């Protein structure tokens, strides 16, 4: 009872009236605030109890809401994880420089030092042709075929990591040109094609997910609105009596807005639950797949902030749906 509310209630404030107004204005503002808050508590509790008393119906509404929320949120999580992959690669974009076959190991080491002094180069790694062959033998599965070769067909290779400031399109372009023109260089390769494709796909997916999210948000609001509409119908008598004894619109709306709020809270919790189960179900296969691609990709669950945001948005949708239903149906319930 000690809480001090920041807002002044305007709904339960009796308007001073010429007739017997003095009787009511004698009660101090503090007392009015207290009773306003205690009415809020009472209505909140009462509407929660009503949902609890019809557990199956409530659970169905919660589940509909939970599924509709979990779907876009799950896809968003997947998308964020994918973007993490491409971001990791982009920052580590490297240029592969294949040297001519005639270049010896010493010359290659010299070239490595030369390239390393360039301002637009951060780091250069030399992959010796014999090391390259050993690795190829290991990973390609062509061990026997390679044994037939007399010579090592692979060239020495330089892995050039551009400096941060040259990691622009123009910077990369000039670096590639300079490297191509260097004596002893056979081919320069910047393989960002698949990354660009991945980026394009994630962007497309991102838009798709947002479009889906908007559609499902509308669906959620409509579902809650319709549920609240039914609640209004079933409590018609109560609404009439409340209006007859002088209940303001705010007073009459309050229980339904709280009902929407509880629907939202329940829906958010169900969504969270569904997401966790799905994540748990997918995590094994995803790890295996990522392992095959030697990627550090992993499906990330919701962060604490994400959980709070999901619940908040869900509550907001529930409230909004209830508000729309109340606006549309409650004001038309008039005694007479």
């Amino acid at each position: 009872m000690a809480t001090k509310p920041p807002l002044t209630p305007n709904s339960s404030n009796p308007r001073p009236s010429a007739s017997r107004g003095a009787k009511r204005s004698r009660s101090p503002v503090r007392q009015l605030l207290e009773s306003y808050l205690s009415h809020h508590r009472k209505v909140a509790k009462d509407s929660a109890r009503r949902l609890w008393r019809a557990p199956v119906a409530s659970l169905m509404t919660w589940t509909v809401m939970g599924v509709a929320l979990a779907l876009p949120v799950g896809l968003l999580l997947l998308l964020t994880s994918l973007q993490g992959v491409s971001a990791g690669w982009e920052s580590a974009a490297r240029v592969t420089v294949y040297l001519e076959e005639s270049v010896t190991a010493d010359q290659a080491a010299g070239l490595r030092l030369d390239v390393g002094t360039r301002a637009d180069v951060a780091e250069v790694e030399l992959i010796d042709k014999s090391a390259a062959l050993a690795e190829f033998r290991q990973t390609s599965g062509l061990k026997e075929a390679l044994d037939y070769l007399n010579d090592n067909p692979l060239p020495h290779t330089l892995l050039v990591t551009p400096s941060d400031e040259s990691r622009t399109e123009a910077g990369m372009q000039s670096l590639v040109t300079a490297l191509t023109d260097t004596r002893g260089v056979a081919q320069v390769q910047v393989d960002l094609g698949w990354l660009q494709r991945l980026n394009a796909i994630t962007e497309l997916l991102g838009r798709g997910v947002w479009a889906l999210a908007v559609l499902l948000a509308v669906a959620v609001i409509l579902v809650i609105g319709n549920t609240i509409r039914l609640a209004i119908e079933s409590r018609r008598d109560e609404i009439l009596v409340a209006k007859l004894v002088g209940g303001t619109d705010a007073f009459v709306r309050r229980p339904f807005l709280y009902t929407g709020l509880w629907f939202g809270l329940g829906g958010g919790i169900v969504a969270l639950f569904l997401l966790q189960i799905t994540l748990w179900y997918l995590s094994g296969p995803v790890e295996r797949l990522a392992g095959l691609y030697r990627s550090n990709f992993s499906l990330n669950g919701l962060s604490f902030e994400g959980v709070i945001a999901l619940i908040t948005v869900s509550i907001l949708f529930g409230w909004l749906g209830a508000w729309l239903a109340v606006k549309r149906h409650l004001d038309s319930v008039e005694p007479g």
Partner: protein
Amino acid sequence: MIEFEQVTKRYDDDHTALRQVNFRLERGEMAFLTGHSGAGKSTLLKLIMLMERPSAGRVIVGGQLLNKMPRRQIPYIRRHVGVVFQNHQLLFDRTVFDNVAMPLEVVGTPSRDIGRRVRAALDKVGLLSKERMNPMQLSGGEQQRVGIARAVVNKPPVLLADEPTGNLDPALSADIMHLFAQFSQVGVTVLIASHDIALINDMNRRTLTLNEGQLIAGAVPSDQEPDHGY
């Protein structure tokens, strides 16, 4: 307390429910409103509780002109008008206590005061022992008395009743009427719509008679009825 000046109410379908009705009820006055069904009794009451608006004329309750009262002000007017209905409009999903408490909750009465005032109202109608019961468990006369307790719990200056004894036997009806008379004695303006002529005659109060929307008797309090409950 209640004042009608040249009040006419016409509905959309050209049906005229009230024609140029004039009357005035003072504070603490108790009066009956009678006439055949369809004579305009309900319409007249609805104008006072702002369920309808007059087509012409002025309706003044507690010094407030109701004609142009904005919609959002309606609840604050209704808090000063207690209403008893023929079908009593009780809610069967809550106890007698909670039914009677509704007008107090609407105005935000602190919960400790609610208990005290609800019990005072229930005591007044003789149902204090039944506060925890569901109205469905009560007899017709008891239900009507719960309705009366709810109408007066907020101590409104005006009390309206639409056929409050419609479903009750004569003895119960007389009880209810005496209850209304007690309220008028403490300054409440009481207007009761009824077609129970025998009962009205027994009570010997001012009687407004409507016929096809016109007030044909009782527009002015007659001198033979000095007992207005002051």
